[in-house]
C-alpha cells in the first residue's frame, strides 16, 4: 500500500513536500494514523488562499491552513471547484491531507474553489466551507501567440537553413591542421 501525503512549507518554490510510502523493504516511519484522544468536534472552516497564479497560462497553486492548527491531529481536506460562487455543479478537486494543490489546464474564465476539513477518524464531521476563492484565467489572444510563434519559427528556420547550406561546403583550405 502506498500512501502519498504532501504538505506545505517544504520543498521547492516555498511549497512543501511530504511523502509517505508505507512499504516494508526499506525501514522508515509507518503511516498509521493515531486516533485523536479528544472527542470528535466540528472544526472551524479552514483558510484557502492563492499561492501563485498563472493567469495567462491557465494554472494556479492553492494553499491552505487550519483556523486552529491544534484543533485536529490528522486533518483531511476536501477541495471543491465550480464555475460559480454558489457552486451549483461542484466537482471534487482533491481529498486528502496535503496543504497545497497545483491546478493546471484551466480554460478561460473564472474558476471558484472552496475547502473544508474533518478529522481522519470522523468521516462525516466536516467543517463549514471556507470562503470561496475566485481564480481568473485570461489567456493571451491567439493572434499574439501565433505572432510570437511565427517570429520564433523564422529565427529557428534561418539557423537550420544556414547550417544546412554551410555544412555541405567542403572544408578545403579552411582546414588549418
Amino acid at each position, binding site marked *: 500500500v*502506498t500512501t*502519498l*501525503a*504532501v*504538505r506545505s512549507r517544504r*520543498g*521547492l*518554490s516555498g*511549497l*512543501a*513536500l*511530504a*511523502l*509517505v*510510502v508505507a*512499504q516494508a523493504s*526499506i*525501514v*522508515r*516511519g509507518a*503511516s498509521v*494514523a493515531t486516533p485523536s484522544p479528544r472527542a470528535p468536534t466540528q472544526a472551524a472552516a479552514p483558510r484557502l488562499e492563492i499561492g501563485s497564479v*498563472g493567469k*495567462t*497560462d*491557465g*494554472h494556479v*497553486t492553492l494553499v491552505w491552513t487550519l483556523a486552529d492548527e491544534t484543533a485536529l491531529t490528522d486533518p483531511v481536506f476536501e477541495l471543491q471547484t465550480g464555475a460559480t460562487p454558489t457552486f451549483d455543479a461542484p466537482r471534487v478537486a482533491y481529498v486528502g491531507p496535503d*496543504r*497545497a*494543490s*497545483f491546478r*493546471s*489546464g*484551466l*480554460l478561460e474564465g473564472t474558476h471558484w474553489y472552496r475547502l473544508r476539513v474533518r478529522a481522519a477518524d470522523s468521516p462525516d464531521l466536516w467543517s463549514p466551507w471556507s470562503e470561496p476563492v475566485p481564480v481568473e484565467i485570461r*489567456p*493571451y489572444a*491567439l493572434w*499574439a*501567440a*501565433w505572432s*510570437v*510563434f511565427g*517570429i*520564433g*519559427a523564422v*529565427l*529557428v528556420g534561418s*539557423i*537550420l537553413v*544556414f*547550417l544546412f547550406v*554551410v*555544412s555541405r561546403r567542403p572544408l578545403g*583550405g*579552411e*582546414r*588549418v*591542421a
Partner: protein
Amino acid sequence: VTDVLLSSSVGWSLLAALSALWIFLGWYWGRRAKSLDGYMLAGRNVGLALGTATAVATWITSNTTMLAPQFALQLGVWGMVGYSTAALGLLLFAPIARRVRALMPGGYTSAEFIRLRYGRRAWGVFLVISLFYAMTWLVSMAMAGGKLLEALSGIPYAWGMTVILTVCVLYTLMGGLFAVIGTDFIQSWLILVGLVVVAVAVLVNVSAETVHAELAVRRPGLLMVLMPAAIMAFFNNMLFGLGEVFHSNVWWSRAFAMREGVGARAYGLAALIWVPVPIVAGFLGLAAPALDINVPSPDMAGPIVAGTLLGDVGAVVVFVLVFCSLASSIDSLLAATADLVTNDVVGGWLRPDADDAVLRKIGTRVVLALGAVTWLVCLPNVGTLATVLFFAGPLVGSAIWPVLLGLYTRRMTGGAATLAMVAGSATGLAAYWGIGWYTGAIVGTGVSFAICLVALRSADDDFEWHRLAGHRAPEVAR
C-alpha cells in the same frame, strides 16, 4: 507519518555510496590527467561511446528530469514536446563540432575562438555572457541538488547541497575532463535505465488512452492544441537551447576533446538518445491528474509520481536518477567554466606568459574557487529553478549568430559581433521583464540576427582562418 520519500538514514547511505563511487572513479580515471591537455581536454582522444555518453549525461540535467514534468503539467502536450526539441541544440552542434575541431585543432575554449576571430572587445562581452550563464546553471544545479535531496530523503538543504557540490569538485579536481567524461558514461547509463524503469511503471499503471481521457475531463487545457502560453513558449525554449549549446564551453570543450571525425557523430547520436528523455519525464507530469495524484508544487511532479507508483524501489531509483543528473551537469560545468577562467581570464589576460604547467596548477585552484563561490551563493537558498534558468535565455540567444557567422563566414566583423551580443542581450532582457519570459530568447536572438544581417551586407572583412590556430598551438597553421 513521515514527510519524505525515503528515510534520512537511507538517503544518507545512498548519498555516501554514490559519493564514494564517483570520487574513486574520478581518482582512478584522473591518473592520466598529468598535462594541461590531459586535464582540460582528456588528451583530445575521446572516442564515440564516451563522447556520446558525456553529451547525453550532461544535457540530462535536473532540469530535464524535474522541469520536463513541470512543463507538461503547466503547458500540456505542447510543453512536453517543446522541451524535447532541446535535442535540436545537440543535433545542430554536430556539424559545428566538426568545424571547430578542424579550424582549431589546438583550441581549448569557446571564448578563445571569439578572441581569435573577433578580437578582445567581443571576447570580453562573450566572456561575461558565458561566465554568467555557466555560473547561473551551476548555481541552479547545486541549489536543485540541495532541495531535491531534502524533498526526497529529508537531508537538510545545506548538507545535501554541500555534499553533492563537494563530491563533484573533488573528482573534477583530481581527474579533470578524464574524470568528468568517465563518470558521465556511467551516470548516463544509470539515468537511462532509471527512466525506463519509471516509464514502464507508469505505463503498467495507466495507459496513454486513459491519461488522455482523464485529462480531457479534469485538465482540458493541457490537451489544447491552441494553448496560447504553450504556443508562445515553443520556439523561445528552442532558441534558448540552441544558444546554450552553441556558445557554452561545456560543449566546445567536448568538441576539442573528441578524436577527429568523432564529434559530429557523437553529438548527432546524443541528440537521438536524448529526444525521448523529456517525453518520458514529461509523461509523468501528464499522468499525475489521471492517477489522481495531487501535486502541491509543479517542480516536484516527477518525483512524486515516480515515488507513488514505484514505492520503495521508485524512491531509490528517483534518488539515484536525481543524483546522477545533477552530478553529470555540475562536474561538466565546473570543468568547462574552470577552463574558461584558466585559459581565457588567466592565460589570455592576467598571465599571458604562463606556460602549460603553470596553467595546469592554476586550473585546479580555479575548480576549487568555483566550488567555493557556488557554495556561498547557494547557501542562502534564494530563487527558483525556472526563474534562474530562463533569465540567461536572452543572453545566450544573442550569441547564436555571432558564433555561427564567425565559424562559417570571413566577412563578419568583431565590432558587429560585439554590438549584436550587447544589443541582443539588452533588448532580450527588456522583453523578458516587460513582456514575459517566453519572449526573452526570441527577442535576444532576433535583434542579434538583424544586426548581423545588416553588418554582413556592409562588411568587407576577409578573415584568415589560420589565425584561429591560437597562441598555444604553434605547430599548426603557420
